[in-house]
Structures are given as structure tokens and as C-alpha cells.
């Protein structure tokens, strides 16, 4: 369908905001990928599953609370806190079981271990819970002052964008100024050197997984509230998209992950709006290929000079 010759500002704005929402979600999950990759150079395929488990935990906690008569924001807060804690615990455990024994292994071995973990976690939730899609209650509050603008941007969208912004800001602060953040950066630069100057590398890696998984759980709660349903297989495709976003922005870089998420979200949104959603993903991947050809280290990634 042709989009017509006139330029419709409202339409453009709506697509831009849709892309922003989508991009924010990708960004939240991409942060976990980028942090883990930055430190141990592993594509953590199980990260998408951690996000799925976060969403499931939130759903279970929220259901139990609502059945016991609790309502309102307190459900949201309690469910999110429990989800974040559990996702962090799962991230921590997954690292201990599937990646830690593989520190000295050939480079691709942890990747296979991660794929195995991803298959395991999906089927674990499938067996323990259900294969069906479960309705996810919209836990996010409706902000009255946004109602007049809801045809362009609803309160859910606003909350998603704001939460991502806040989480990124907090993470940047954490990485830049805390002791643990410094240790993380040191480990990412040179693991052996960091070890020599007294950084407990194993602890740093564990913490990276915990922080990344916690962010994924926040993403999980937000997405589930936004699309209103979850099942055991939601993690995989979102995980791949988020990883694409992380690479797009320059893997290992935190502002890169956010920027990559947003660029990916906008590409998909505008491709759908102005061309066709049939090829939404094709556009996303073509953009990725193009950017990497002209900037092989991603948008914000530093191209490492190869030393001999």
C-alpha cells in the first residue's frame, strides 16, 4: 500500500514513539548481553531465557498477591522486586554451572553450553508451568495526565521509556564510579592484568551476570505488561533481537547497547510504517550488515587496533 505523497507529521511521530518503546525494551535486554560479552566474550544465549523467567516469576507473584486481595502499585513493586531477585539468582546459578567450569576451555565451548542452557530453561518452564500463553496483568499504573495523548503515547509506553532511561543512568553511574564497576571495567580490558592487581575476577564475573539478569527481569516485566501475555518461548526471539542491538551499537559498550536498541527499534518501526511489516526483520538485519561493513566495530564500538 502506498503511503501517499504528503508527509504526515502525526504518523511519523506515532511511528517514532512506537520505535522508541520497542527500542527501549531491546536496549534493556541488550545491556545484559553487552556486559557479559564485554567481560568474558561470550554470547550468552540463555539471557533471553532469564528475561522469560523474570516475567514468569513476576506473573506468579502478582497472581498470588492479587488472589490474596492486594491491589495497585504495591503488587507491581513486590512482583518486580521478586522477579529481579530471582532473575539475578538464575543468572548467577547459570554462570556457576554452565560457564564457570569453562573458563579455560576453547572459545566456542561456552557458546554451546549457553545454547544447551537455553534449551534446558525453556523446557524447564514448559514442564513446570504450562505451554499455553498466560495473560499477564497490566501491572503498570495508568497515568491520568497521559490520557489525552494516548493515541500517540500511552502511559505504558512512557513508563517503559522512562524506566529504561533510569536503568541506563543508574548502570552508567555504577560502572563509572563504584569500586565494583571499576573492577568490571578492569576485567573487561584485561582479565589477567586485573587479576594481577588484585581484582577477584570470579566475583566480578558473577556480579556482571547478576546485574545483567536483573536488568533483563525489569525488561521482562515491562514487555509482559505491554504485550499482555507470556509463555515459555518468548525469550528466544527477543534475545536474538537484543543481541543484534548490542552488536549494532558496538558490543561491550553500554551507551552503544542503548543506542543500538533504539536504532533497531526505529528501523523496524519505520520499515513497517513506510514499507511493509513483511520485511521488518529483513530491514533490521540489512541495517546491521550495512553498519558493520562500514563500521566493523558497531556504531559506538572502539575498533581495536590489532597488535602483532
Amino acid at each position, binding site marked *: *500500500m502506498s*503511503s501517499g505523497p504528503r508527509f*504526515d507529521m502525526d*504518523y511519523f511521530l*506515532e*511511528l517514532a*514513539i*512506537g*520505535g522508541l*518503546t*520497542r527500542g527501549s*525494551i*531491546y536496549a534493556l535486554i541488550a545491556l545484559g548481553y553487552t556486559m557479559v560479552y564485554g567481560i568474558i566474550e561470550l554470547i550468552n544465549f540463555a539471557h533471553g531465557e532469564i528475561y522469560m523467567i523474570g516475567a514468569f516469576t513476576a506473573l506468579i507473584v502478582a497472581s498470588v498477591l492479587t488472589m490474596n486481595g492486594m491491589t495497585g502499585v504495591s503488587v507491581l513493586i513486590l512482583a518486580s522486586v521478586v522477579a529481579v531477585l530471582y532473575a539475578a539468582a538464575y543468572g548467577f546459578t547459570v554462570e556457576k554451572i554452565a560457564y564457570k567450569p569453562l573458563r579455560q576451555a576453547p572459545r566456542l565451548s561456552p557458546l554451546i553450553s549457553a545454547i544447551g542452557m537455553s534449551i534446558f530453561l525453556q*523446557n524447564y518452564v*514448559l514442564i513446570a508451568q*504450562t*505451554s*499455553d*500463553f*498466560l*495473560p499477564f496483568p497490566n501491572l503498570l499504573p495508568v497515568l491520568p495526565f497521559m490520557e489525552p495523548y*494516548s*493515541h500517540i503515547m*500511552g502511559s505504558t*509506553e512512557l513508563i517503559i521509556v522512562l524506566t529504561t532511561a533510569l536503568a541506563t543512568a543508574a548502570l552508567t553511574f555504577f560502572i563509572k564510579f563504584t569500586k565494583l564497576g571499576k573492577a568490571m571495567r578492569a576485567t573487561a580490558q584485561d582479565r589477567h592484568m586485573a587479576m594481577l592487581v588484585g581484582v577477584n575476577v570470579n566475583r566480578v564475573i558473577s556480579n556482571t551476570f547478576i546485574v545483567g539478569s536483573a536488568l533483563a527481569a525489569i525488561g521482562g516485566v515491562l*514487555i509482559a505488561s*505491554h*504485550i*499482555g*501475555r507470556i*509463555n*515459555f*518461548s*518468548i525469550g*528466544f*526471539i*527477543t534475545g536474538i*533481537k537484543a543481541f543484534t542491538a548490542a552488536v549494532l551499537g558496538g558490543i561491550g559498550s553500554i551507551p552503544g547497547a542503548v543506542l543500538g536498541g533504539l536504532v533497531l527499534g526505529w528501523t*523496524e*518501526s*519505520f520499515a*513497517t*510504517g513506510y514499507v*511493509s*511489516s*513483511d520485511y*521488518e*526483520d529483513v530491514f533490521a538485519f540489512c541495517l546491521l550488515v550495512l553498519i558493520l561493513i562500514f563500521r566493523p566495530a558497531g556504531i559506538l564500538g572502539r575498533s581495536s587496533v590489532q597488535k602483532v
Partner: protein
Amino acid sequence: MDHHSRRTFLAFFCAAFLTALPFGPLFAADAIKLGVAGAHSGDLASYGLPTVKAAELVVKEINAKGGVLGRQVELLVEDDVCKPELATNTATKLVSQNVNAVIGHICSGATKAALGIYKDAKLVVISPSATNPDLTQSGQYPNFYRTIASDDAQARMEVEFAIGKLKVKKIAVLHDKGDYGKGLAEYAKKFIEESKKATVVLFEGITPGAVDYSAVVQKIKRADAEAVIYGGYHPEASSIVAQMRKKGMKIFFISDDGVKDDTFIKVAQKYAEGVYATGPRDTTKNPLAISAIEAHKKAYGADPGAFFLNGIAATQAILNAMQKAGSTDYAALGQALQTQFVETPLGKIKFDKRGDAIGVGFSVYQVRKGVYVEVK
């Protein structure tokens, strides 16, 4: 040949030997064996597992009453993940275990891949959910039957309803790019264009599993569509409807059997209100359907999933045919399926020569006050 390749060969054969240890027959010979094949793991498991539960419930009830032809019925449940190549493995496995008939497969693609194998082994196959028109209309699969309407039948009904009853002129046709959804959407588009009473203002595939559908919703709005016909399953449908309603779009939403599912109402909640979907007639009042759903709730503590009633009907149809035919012989079974009516949750049905169910009347439903109500 040097050392290296010798070792290679050796390892190769060793592995072949070790992995090929055959599994002996697990069941006694006198039971009737019913294969149940479909997606039981992976992202499409939610469409395959309800049929397993349906078959289990029916078989449990029948076995309690003494079985079929005086023999107990046993289920052999095999997973094909909705992948054609795995479906052929599943099919050969079931054939080599000497099943008497098969319920499945779930996806049309996997069904097509497997049917040749069953045909060669002279086995009747009844699918609760494979809707591709070719399966019955091409005449290539004489052993195939189904308890669901084909894509074109549903699409025709949706289009007639939209143009005739709702009197819309501009229709947006969406699909989920899948086997089922896209097939249906293509037929819908064809029928709308043929009717010349309405135009297709938008024809697009959405991405299943995406985190947001706002862009495509904006596009529907911009195209000024008066109705949306959606081909696909309920998870995506609920997201699209919810986003449409949140944006204040009150246009009609018409969909298919994959959406005429109570889970849709549970997931979409208040946004489900007013949505139309086609599905088998009068299941909401059919006592067999009500009791089947009750049995499921009692056994599994949850509402049944997609194609559950179709699964019940398929199992009942095949077991009834065995009983009526007095044997599990291929020709006799086919004969019985085509001549003997059977009471199922979908109504009193038998099958035509091509394998489509006769007696499964189709009608349009609408969500009113949180339940699907038949539109008269």
C-alpha cells in the same frame, strides 16, 4: 588410506553401532494403538499439547468402558516440533510400532511431509488442526481426514460476514506469516477482490513474538480500514486488538479458529470485547463440548488450549469408526469414517470423500461480556 582417515572410519562405525541399539516393542500386541503426533516441545507446543490431553481424556473414558472392539486403547505420543523433517521420523517411528491409526499432525507442513509415509503404510490420519486446503482438495492424500475447516472455507465465511453483515468497504488483511495464518489471509484477500464489493486496503504479515505491534496498528489506522481480517493464532491477535483499542480504534476485528479460543478472551481481557471469530457451530451449547471442557478442568486444573475440541472430535471419530467397522483395517476404517455419523463436541459428524468433516457447521462468534456468543 592413512592413519587419520582410518580412525575416522572406525569412530564413525563405532558410533553407528552404539547409537543404533534398537528399542524393543514396548506394548502388548493385543491393544489398539493410536499414534498422537504433533508439536509437543518448542515454540508451537501450545498448539500440539492440548490435542494430546484431548486424546488422553477420550481414551481414558473409553478404556474405562471396556475399550474398543473389546481391546484397550493405547496412545503413542510422538513429538514432531512442527518440523517437516522430524515429522517424517515421527511417522516412520509410529509406522514401525504398528499403530492402527494416527491423530495428527498439528501443522499443515509437518502433516504434508508425514502423510506420504502413512499412505504407504495404509494408515488413516485425522488431524485436529491442519487447515491447508491442498490436504483434502488435491486428492493426493486419500488417507487424510480432519476435524477442522480448511483455510478457504473459513476465509470465505469471514469475508462474507464482513461484506454482507457488517457492510464494510475497506478491509485490512493481516496474517502472522505462518503456514496457517498466511494461507487464510491469502484466500481472504482473493475472495474480497472477487466480490468487488470491498477493497483490501492493507495486506501485511506481522512478526510473531515481536515485543510491540504499534507500527502496524498505526498503519491500519492510516489506511482508513473499517475492518481487520486477521489470519493467525490468538497470542498475536490479542496484542494487536489491545493496541488498536488503546489507540482508540473501534473498527471491527474478524479472525479465525485459531482465535476462537477462550484463552484469547483471558489474555486480551476487556479488549476482546466485540471481536469476531469463526469457529465450529454451537460448541458452546453442545453437552459433549461442555463435558469435555469440564473433564479437562478437572484433570488438569486449567482451561483447555487451542484445538482441544477438534482433538476430542478426531479421537472420537477414529475410535467410533473402528467400533463400527469392526476392525482396524484401512479400507474398512475409511468406509466407516465416510458413512457413519459420530457424536462429537463439534456436532454430529462424518467425512466426505476428500476427508473434510461434514456436519461441523461453521458460524461466526462474537465476544460479548467476556464469552464467545454465536452471531445469528
